[in-house]
């Protein structure tokens, strides 16, 4: 995976408002671990339809942090999961871990 997370989108959205930026990052820091945990729970219990819904939700945050290839991976993985195919799991989990580490630096 060559992509790394960035704050370009969030900063553009904030239009200079540090308060907005911090508040939004705070919400993401709170939501993201829960969404990841729910995905892992459903994935490990082979509840792939529910896991696909979790991927759908996570897709937004993947896009927010500037992942382009990663966003496409999430789209493909969501579709795969709907037919119980899991070949993109490792690729997808790397994206989530990358965001997780990035959030810890903010």
């Amino acid at each position, binding site marked *: 995976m060559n992509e790394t997370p960035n704050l370009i989108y969030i900063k*553009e959205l904030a239009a200079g408002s540090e308060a907005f930026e911090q*508040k939004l990052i705070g919400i993401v820091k709170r939501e993201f671990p829960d969404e990841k945990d729910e995905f892992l729970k459903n994935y490990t219990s082979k509840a792939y339809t529910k896991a696909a819904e979790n991927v*759908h*939700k996570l897709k937004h945050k993947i896009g927010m942090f500037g992942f382009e290839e990663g966003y496409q991976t999430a789209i493909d993985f969501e579709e795969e999961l709907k037919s119980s195919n899991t070949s993109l799991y490792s690729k997808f989990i790397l994206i989530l871990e990358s965001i997780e580490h990035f959030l810890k630096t903010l």
Partner: protein
Amino acid sequence: MNCIIIDDEETARMIIQQLCSQVDELNVIEDFPNAIQAIKFLNKEEVDLIFLDIHMPDFTGFDFIDTLKNPPKIILTTSDKNFALEAFEYECIVDYLVKPITLPRFLKAIQKAESATTVTTTEASAETSTELPSNTSSSEENELYINIDRRLIKINIPTINLIEAKGDYVLIKTEKQNYTVHSTLKKVEEKLPTDLFLKVHRSYIINIKKIIDIEDNSVLIAKDVIPVSRSNRPELMKRLNML
């Protein structure tokens, strides 16, 4: 326009709030994490516009719309392009935004909502003719279809140099060809991305990426010298990347 936001993701609600805060005409009354709470609210209050997430647990955005007797204008927000076709079965849906939503795309959606409101209030639906069919999904943002002699011709939007009003017609000048279409400058403007195009005069919209040079009250685009009105000049200057 009074509006509400319905999305189960708090991040998404906050982003839409922030985008709305950048448009004077929008007043966000409430936001809701689910459709049920929104339905209760709408039983008591009226709104002009709803930002609605389609993909919510238990009660989808389409389920929600089906509960409304007289739905207001709705802009769908989602991370899924697959719902686009279903969306166009609903007259109340004016646009479809794919997350993460950018400001230019958001502004375009608001323009569509505003023009849809105008059409309703003036009962001028006949005026919304199909000379310039709208772009129907985010994947087609770079395309504009024009109706010439009953043929729909696709124009790649970034290749447009300028558009000039000519009475009941507009002249669309692209890099390679010119087209005369029965339409108004206002209608054309609504179909173009706001980050790329700017109305610099009551009769001209220009592609700001195509500017060769600027003199006091005019810009040069290809071989055309286009007048810039005094009131539009500050916005033009603001858009330029100047040293």
